[in-house]
């Protein structure tokens, strides 16, 4: 009797956040298919995946940054800056490959500035990236003002909206799949990954074990800037539109995906698999709401709530487990007391 009870408890304790996410994902898939007959069509899935490509791209380096117990709020502004730069340079008749490289370099520089300020001057990343959130978006406005540039060459616009032949996978989404694989290997199968966890788990111990914290953090911020700029390029071609306000507020969704993916606020925990699952979940929820003709302001409320719930829920679970442990210990003490 007690044997059975303890084994269920052990099971509950062992269930990982990824398993819970996978179950929720299955639930959402079944729910979506039941509620709407358009849900499981290839066309809808091409839409669904395309719609969160940019956020998914930005969430990858962001989750590594959050694991090291820092944050980057400027990702969506770098997206906007890269999009504006792309439009402006294209208007100056620069060759497209050169334009794209410039955008990526600009993004990497933005990320480097974040990292440099945080690492070299030991400034809090929250404050720095709130500042650069305004600064980089400001640069985007300086570059493009309130103009919109739309006349991109057709082969690039097609890259933005096309799908991989004979599948429902949007071409830009391939970038995400490749990068997700790279980040998965990086975080879970290399020493760099172990070091990232070490920094988040215990920075002092990490420093004493000879990890160059500063260089690694700087590298992560550069990666974040670079990939945010890539997301800016994808966004621009997907909508064939370069505007200074592109992607405003995307940092919310990216951060929500990271926390919902099981990366903890205290750092040191989280997996790429979890983040990918949570991205899919958020994408499906948004898609279902859009299919049900729910207004975009409700989507805002849902994303905001997801962000809060994604942190509140693990907190509550941890609290419950803690009280279980206390109860068990008390019962044991009582048993020992009665035995003697």
């Amino acid at each position, binding site marked *: 009797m007690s044997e059975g009870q303890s084994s269920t408890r052990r099971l509950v304790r062992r269930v990982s956040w990824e398993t819970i996410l996978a179950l929720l994902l299955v639930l959402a898939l079944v729910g979506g298919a039941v509620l709407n007959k358009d849900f499981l069509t290839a066309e809808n899935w091409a839409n669904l995946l395309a719609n969160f490509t940019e956020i998914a791209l930005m969430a990858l380096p962001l989750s590594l940054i959050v694991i090291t117990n820092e944050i980057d709020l400027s990702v969506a502004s770098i997206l906007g800056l890269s999009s504006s730069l792309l439009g402006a340079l294209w208007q100056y008749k620069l060759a497209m490959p050169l334009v794209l490289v410039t955008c990526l370099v600009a993004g990497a520089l933005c990320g480097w500035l974040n990292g440099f300020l945080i690492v070299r*001057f030991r400034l809090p990343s929250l*404050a720095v990236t709130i*500042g650069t959130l*305004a*600064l980089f978006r400001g640069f985007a406005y300086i570059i493009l003002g309130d103009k919109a540039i739309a006349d991109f060459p057709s082969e690039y616009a097609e890259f933005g909206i096309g799908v991989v032949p004979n599948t429902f996978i949007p071409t830009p989404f391939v970038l995400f799949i490749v990068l997700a694989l790279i980040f998965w290997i990086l975080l879970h199968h290399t020493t760099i990954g172990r070091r990232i966890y070490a920094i988040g788990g215990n920075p002092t111990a990490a420093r004493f074990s000879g990890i160059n914290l500063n260089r690694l953090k700087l590298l992560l911020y550069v990666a974040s800037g670079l990939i945010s700029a890539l997301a800016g390029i994808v966004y621009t071609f997907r909508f064939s539109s370069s505007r200074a306000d592109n992607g405003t507020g995307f940092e919310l969704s990216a951060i929500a995906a990271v926390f919902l993916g099981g990366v903890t606020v205290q750092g040191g925990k989280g997996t790429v698999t979890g983040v990918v699952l949570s991205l899919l979940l958020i994408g499906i929820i948004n898609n279902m709401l859009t299919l049900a003709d729910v207004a975009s302001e409700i989507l805002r409320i849902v994303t905001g709530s997801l962000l*809060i719930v994604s942190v*509140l829920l693990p907190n509550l679970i941890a609290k419950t487990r803690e009280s279980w442990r206390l109860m068990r210990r008390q019962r044991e003490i009582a048993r020992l007391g009665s035995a003697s």
Partner: protein
Amino acid sequence: MTKQPENTAEGQGWLNALFRSRETSLVLLIAVLTAVTTTLNPRFLSPQSLKDLMLNVSIIALLVLGQTVIILMRQIDLSISSIVGITAFLSGTLFINHPGISGYVVIAIAVLTGLLLGAVNAALIAWGKIPALITTLGTLYIFRGANYAWVHGRQVNAVNVPGSFLAIGTSTVAGVPILTWIVLILLILFSIGLRQYRAGREYYAIGSNPNAAVLAGINVSRRIAIGFIISGAIAGLAGALWLARFGTVDATAAEGIELTVITSTVVGGVAITGGVGTVVGAVLGALLLSVFSSTLVFLRVPSFWQQAFQGAMLLVAIAADAYLAYRHALRSRVKWSHV
């Protein structure tokens, strides 16, 4: 060690004291900026543009009071702009649906609504143990989304609002707009409260060293909760005054001003790492930012440059704070070595 730090310290004592006070350097900066702009364009100091300046800075300065309390505790409140948006539209709707309603009642309801929304933040942060950044980033979008859903494309216009209420944003008493008087009175109250009263000192204690604050018997969760409730109530008041100032309110009212408020507060010397700063400094920070953006307008700099300048100022301010803290730590270490 033959270094004699006392000598140098004595030589620059008054200079150090002057520059160590953020308020003095802010006043100097504002004076220099005003002087330069006035020489380039004498209309900068005309009574009308001075009144505009005071009106422009008032609502930001009001929000800065609440944000100071929050940042002193090493927390942050991003949701204020959405609370201002909701309460501004609510105030307008009250005037439309209940003709003849007293302006005081409207202000009271706006403050109460802001307080309740602040209480949502407070509950999530103090008892749900969610970091303030996450909570208020979430509620920034939730409150604004709710506002959009509720407003649904409608708009409150100045004709819907009684003239006596709009007078708060236009009339002056002794040359100073009523709106500015309200902010000044609250500034004095907050300044005294944070400096002289136990509750006020507790905000500093929590920000300086949260663990020590717990050991000193401060109920940190409750203090943090009250801080966010105060911030919400202030944002509610700012919402009602937003309507009085602008007359026209739609769903986008006050969108994005949380960045200006946080930048003002930090530029005003309230360290983002908590425990340091005064409301007077923070309001001077708001004034500096406001003078700076007027300067840009008077110098015909395109308005697209404003946001980049604001971000740069925030970065410079936190870098300056970190540098001052570093110097302070260095100096006290030298002092200790002589003991």
